[in-house]
């Protein structure tokens, strides 16, 4: 019969909990008791009692363990001490190592801050998931169809009536800069917008004063921003006070005050007034004219695509069958408006609109810069660890096991990444303000303190520490203690991995630099390209109802000033997309209706901007029909279109914008000029003078003393219009603004690419110095045998030259391919010169060479007696 034994699980448990040193005696005692009980009480009770004893013994968990723990603590203390000693022993390398990583981390952190800000645009509206902007796709004749952010006045209310899934709407209709009078003082309110009463219910702009539901009870109710209220009313309570709006000459009552609109809102306004004041029969039936934005609120779980599919019916119902040839409606989710509107034109109310693709480029760059920095960190750690062979030899000899050495190096690496993180936060702190200025944002570091972000940052840091520590840790722990103690470090084959990493690093850096240079050149090219009109030295001033009445006086007064060359006026600023309108002209066989862009200009406009007239003549004050609005000048693109239907000359063709039967005449064809961004094609366009009032006056200054010219204008302006403060803008500044998003992008990318090459070079520098040190003796012998300084520098630099060359060979074709695709997106591209590749290739090789030779030169100059003495 088998002798009964104590339960094995209880024994295992006991072994687990009781310190090894006393396990045997304790287990012996329990076993003895078990045998005693076996005789006295039987198997079951004995087993049960044994289990109980074992369970109770858990309380002795700490017995005789204390001494062991104490030993470990000493070991960890020693690890830490050695880590810091090593850090201080090689101050230079430690600095390069940690600083390089900190640079990478800092740029990554800052970019994440920016990216977060971009994704967070309009994020403060609680209903954002249900809010949509109503946009149109317009197709007029030969003009390519375009997405526009505009919609029609009656659309919002009718959509809500027709479709129950649309629960609310608000229009957003800007009024622009408006002069407000309080008693005898006048103030410009920069941006007043007309909205519907539901505005504050749909959007979460914070009210400071006033009752949400009672803001727009009367058509003349006005809500002001906090800073506008302070500007006009100072410390008085503005609610209930009245203002007089000049221009429309309305008396308005302030009913509320809202907190200034945050920077990360795509709608920006200083005051709001309800649309009620303008709401008449004409407007309510004003299908066909687009001049405002419409925002819709949908109920939960609406299938947006299904809803959009119903919009065609909606258009036909209200505007007739033919409407579908021209219009199509679509919905844009609110969170998409900021980043997803690059292909949408006439998008006037989209503050700091930015391209999602650019955000992605930033993200990618951040990742790569961090990657380069981490590779650096890893390479340098490995290289430095190689000099610690003796330490590992000693540790292993006195009983350290492989896992302990691995653990030690991993922990060290994590410790250093966290030190780097501290540096990185410091760097961010220093760089934040300059960055904010460049990208025109208001980023704040407080975002890092959000628990989730903090955890992500710490976890990522930990991960970088782990990943970059794992290779050196494994290499080091694999050392044969005998060899390590003898002082022979790493064997040659192991450095292949490091070389591959250097190549990888450099390839990324080279690719980023080439990309940046090409992108910057493309931008410069576009900004300096001949636009087809003279944009320099032109000052533009907005015109209003009251100033338009005195336009002729203004013009002749300005012309009298010695510093002013010419004066003209227009209804639309150049450097924008221009509005479109319908047009009619007589073809060979029939009258043809189409549509085209259209701008109303003064008769000297073409002379003023020095545009090339290809056929016929430009508008001129000498022809009565030009002054009366009977003459039209078309651009080349439109001329081509018309030429396909008329036999013979375009000049002389009867022509007019839509809505009339008596046509005027085309008097000239002007060479295409780029009134819009150069990434876009020039659309068909015609110009004429109409008596509709100007929206701005353009003044051309004599080159030389610009300030004198501006003073002249101001003087004339304030004499004629004492009620209007003088404000102006230079046209080339305005045109520059079109490229702002690209400019910010290239600036930040330039900084990043410089950082990338610095970090990569730092890594190379550190690595070179270690390699060089390992070959000290070899170089000593070479010198003794008669090698010259230059020969030794050559030998040491050869390997790194090769690495950079390989990196270049990998990076160049890849970059070429990617940039070629990018350039294809521009109507006017600068092209990819091979010269740039050559320059960047040689440049990065030189940087690498200088970095390496700085080290090798020192060795080459050293006295062989010194180097050979080292044992």
């Amino acid at each position, binding site marked *: 019969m088998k002798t009964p034994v104590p339960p094995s699980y209880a024994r295992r448990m006991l072994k687990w909990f009781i310190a090894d040193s006393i396990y045997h*005696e304790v287990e012996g005692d329990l*076993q003895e008791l078990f045998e005693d009980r076996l005789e006295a009480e039987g198997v079951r009770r004995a087993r049960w009692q044994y289990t109980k004893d074992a369970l109770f*013994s858990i309380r*002795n968990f700490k017995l005789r363990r204390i001494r062991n723990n104490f030993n470990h603590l000493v070991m960890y203390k020693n690890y830490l001490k050695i880590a810091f000693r090593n850090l201080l022993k090689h101050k230079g390398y430690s600095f390069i190592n940690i600083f390089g990583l900190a640079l990478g981390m800092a740029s990554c952190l800052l970019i994440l801050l920016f990216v977060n800000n971009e994704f967070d645009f309009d994020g403060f509206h609680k209903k954002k998931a249900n809010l949509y902007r109503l946009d149109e796709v317009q197709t007029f004749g030969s003009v390519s169809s375009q997405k526009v952010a505009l919609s029609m006045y009656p659309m919002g209310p009718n959509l809500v009536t027709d479709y129950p899934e649309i629960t609310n709407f608000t229009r957003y209709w800007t009024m622009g800069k408006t002069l407000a009078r309080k008693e005898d003082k006048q103030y410009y309110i920069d941006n007043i917008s007309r909205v519907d009463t539901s505005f504050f219910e749909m959007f979460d702009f914070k009210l400071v004063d006033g009752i949400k539901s009672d803001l727009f009870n009367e058509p003349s109710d006005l809500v002001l921003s906090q800073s506008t209220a302070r500007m006009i009313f100072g410390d008085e309570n503005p609610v209930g006070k009245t203002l007089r709006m000049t221009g429309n000459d309305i008396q308005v009552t302030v009913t509320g005050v809202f907190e200034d609109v945050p920077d990360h809102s795509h709608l920006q306004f200083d005051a709001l007034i309800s649309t009620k004041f303008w709401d008449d029969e004409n407007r309510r039936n004003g299908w066909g004219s687009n001049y405002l934005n419409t925002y819709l609120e949908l109920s939960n779980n609406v299938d947006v695509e299904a809803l959009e599919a119903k919009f065609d019916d909606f258009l036909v119902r209200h505007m007739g069958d033919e409407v579908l040839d021209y219009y199509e409606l679509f919905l844009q989710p609110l969170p998409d408006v900021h980043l997803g509107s690059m292909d949408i034109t006439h998008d006037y109310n989209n503050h700091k609109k930015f391209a999602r693709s650019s955000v992605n480029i930033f993200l990618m760059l951040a990742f790569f810069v961090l990657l380069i920095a981490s590779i650096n960190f890893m390479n340098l750690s490995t290289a430095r660890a190689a000099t610690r062979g003796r330490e590992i030899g000693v540790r292993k000899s006195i009983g350290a096991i492989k896992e302990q050495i691995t653990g030690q190096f991993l922990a060290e690496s994590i410790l250093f990444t966290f030190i780097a993180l501290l540096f990185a936060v410091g760097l961010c702190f220093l760089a934040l303000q300059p960055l904010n200025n460049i990208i025109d944002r208001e980023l704040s570091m407080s975002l890092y303190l959000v628990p989730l972000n903090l955890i992500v940052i710490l976890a990522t840091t930990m991960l970088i520490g782990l990943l970059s520590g794992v290779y050196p840790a494994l290499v080091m722990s694999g050392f044969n203690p005998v060899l390590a103690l003898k002082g022979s470090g790493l064997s040659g084959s192991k450095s292949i991995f490091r070389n591959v990493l250097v190549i990888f690093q450099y390839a990324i850096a080279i690719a980023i630099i080439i990309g940046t240079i090409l992108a910057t050149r493309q931008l410069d090219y576009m900004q300096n390209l001949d636009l087809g009109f003279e944009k320099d030295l032109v000052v533009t001033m907005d015109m209003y109802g009251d100033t338009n009445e005195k336009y002729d006086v203004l013009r002749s007064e300005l012309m009298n000033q010695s510093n002013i060359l010419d004066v003209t006026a227009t209804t639309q600023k150049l450097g924008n997309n221009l509005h479109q309108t319908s047009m009619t002209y007589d073809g060979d066989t029939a009258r043809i209706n189409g549509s085209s862009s259209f701008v109303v200009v003064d008769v000297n406009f073409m002379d003023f901007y020095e545009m090339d007239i290809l056929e016929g003549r430009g508008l001129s004050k000498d022809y009565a029909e030009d002054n009366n609005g009977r003459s039209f000048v078309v651009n080349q693109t439109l001329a081509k279109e018309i030429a396909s239907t008329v036999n013979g000359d375009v000049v002389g063709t009867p022509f007019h914008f839509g809505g009339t039967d008596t046509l005027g005449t085309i008097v000239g064809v002007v060479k295409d000029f780029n009134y819009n961004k150069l990434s876009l094609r020039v659309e068909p366009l015609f110009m004429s003078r109409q008596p509709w009032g100007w929206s701005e006056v353009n003044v051309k200054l004599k080159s030389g003393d610009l300030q004198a010219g501006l003073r002249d204008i101001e003087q004339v302006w304030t004499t004629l219009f004492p009620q209007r403060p003088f404000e102006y803008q230079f046209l080339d500044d305005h045109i520059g603004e079109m490229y702002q998003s690209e400019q910010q992008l290239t600036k930040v990318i330039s900084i990043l690419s410089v950082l990338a090459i610095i970090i990569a070079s730092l890594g190379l520098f550190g690595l070179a110095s270690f390699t060089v040190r390992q070959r000290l003796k070899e170089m000593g012998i070479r010198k003794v045998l008669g090698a010259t300084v230059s020969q030794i520098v050559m030998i040491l630099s050869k390997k790194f030259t090769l690495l950079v060359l390989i990196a270049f060979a990998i990076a160049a074709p890849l970059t070429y391919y990617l940039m070629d695709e990018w350039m294809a997106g521009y109507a006017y591209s600068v092209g990819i010169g091979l010269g740039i590749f050559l320059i960047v290739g040689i440049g990065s090789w030189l940087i690498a060479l200088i970095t390496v030779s700085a080290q090798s030169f020192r060795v080459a100059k050293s006295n062989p007696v010194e180097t050979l003495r080292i044992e």
Partner: protein
Amino acid sequence: MRGTYLGELEELVLLSVAALVDSAYAVAVRAEIEGRANRKVNISAIHASLYRLEDKGFLDSHMGEATNKRGGKSKRIFTVTTYGYKTLKEAQTVRQSFWGSIPQLSAQK
């Protein structure tokens, strides 16, 4: 007296070890206490006391014989140190002095 303080169980264990003279190990101590004081104590408590008393310097120990009954595992034999005896004596004296001052009457009651 701090540091030499003896808990109630500790005192019993210490006394048992003294009484068992050279054959005191955990199982024997447990049996001794059960026999004399009629108290059932779990073996783990005995272990805890023994090792703690050793740490405090009241006990000394060495490895003893191994028996079949113990699955071939040695016993740890505990002996009382001079310091341990001194402390026991002191504890006794303290108690004695209390007994001396208790009036006979109430003691007989």
